[in-house]
């Protein structure tokens, strides 16, 4: 049975709200970007790579974690 076929009351329980879905997607995308930056900087042996990892990768990680925490805190 798909979510659309469920009665209204059950649908609310089994479907994440669009806001939560969006926040989870945004969180995932930021975290994926952060990890992409991490991989690139790990392969680049140069002093600048650490700065790029901390500044750019760190920012993506923080945004991703913040978006996820928002989705958890404001689920209801």
């Amino acid at each position: 049975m798909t979510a659309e076929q469920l009665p209204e009351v059950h649908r609310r329980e089994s479907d994440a709200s669009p806001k939560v879905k969006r926040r989870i997607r945004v969180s995932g995308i930021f975290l994926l970007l952060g990890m992409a930056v991490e991989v690139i900087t790990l392969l680049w042996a140069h002093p600048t790579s650490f700065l790029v990892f901390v500044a750019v990768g760190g920012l993506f990680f923080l945004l991703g974690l913040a978006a996820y925490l928002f989705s958890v805190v404001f689920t209801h």
Partner: protein
Amino acid sequence: MDITKVLLITFIGLTALLIYTVVLRPDLTTTRGGKMLAFIALFILPVALAGAGVQTHIESSKQTEFCLSCHIMEPYGKSLRIDDGVHLAGSHFVNHRIPVDEACYTCHTDYTVFGGTKSKLRGLRHVWVWLTQDPKPPLHLYAAYTNKNCLHCHLGGKPFEEGAVHNADPETMKQIKEDKLSCVSSGCHDMNHDTANLKNLKFYYPPGERQP
């Protein structure tokens, strides 16, 4: 590439797959198991991987190759190959008296509780100075080179403890150990990175290693 980096990149790949799954199917988070999965994929693993990334970067910044990757460090890297016992950096490096993979870090870090952290902060300062002041060789240390860096290895060793000059009078050894008489700038072991005379010096490269 060392095994730590390979493992870390593998874990990053696996975590990325997990995150991708949650991103594609956010409805998973409505169930208890899905919530746990999302918490692990979107919080626990990224925090762990970011921490591991910082640690790996710090470890790789100890590598000689890392320090010499800056163009300005080129002559200092070359001075490590000087094949002459009088030249301190060269004789330590060429004779493998220090780990050649971490040569710069071995001699230029403070062996204190936060010595490694201080070294890394100094490294960030190097980048800042390089970006803002356009430094030119010869480079200078921010602070005087302390005997602690030498005695970390040499203290208790026969050549140091029984060296004729070190024991010429009772005060000399005391002053060296108390860092009042510098090993490198008191006229004894003062031939360090002689970058100004590289053209006139002889270098040693082990068999199979390419000369620049």
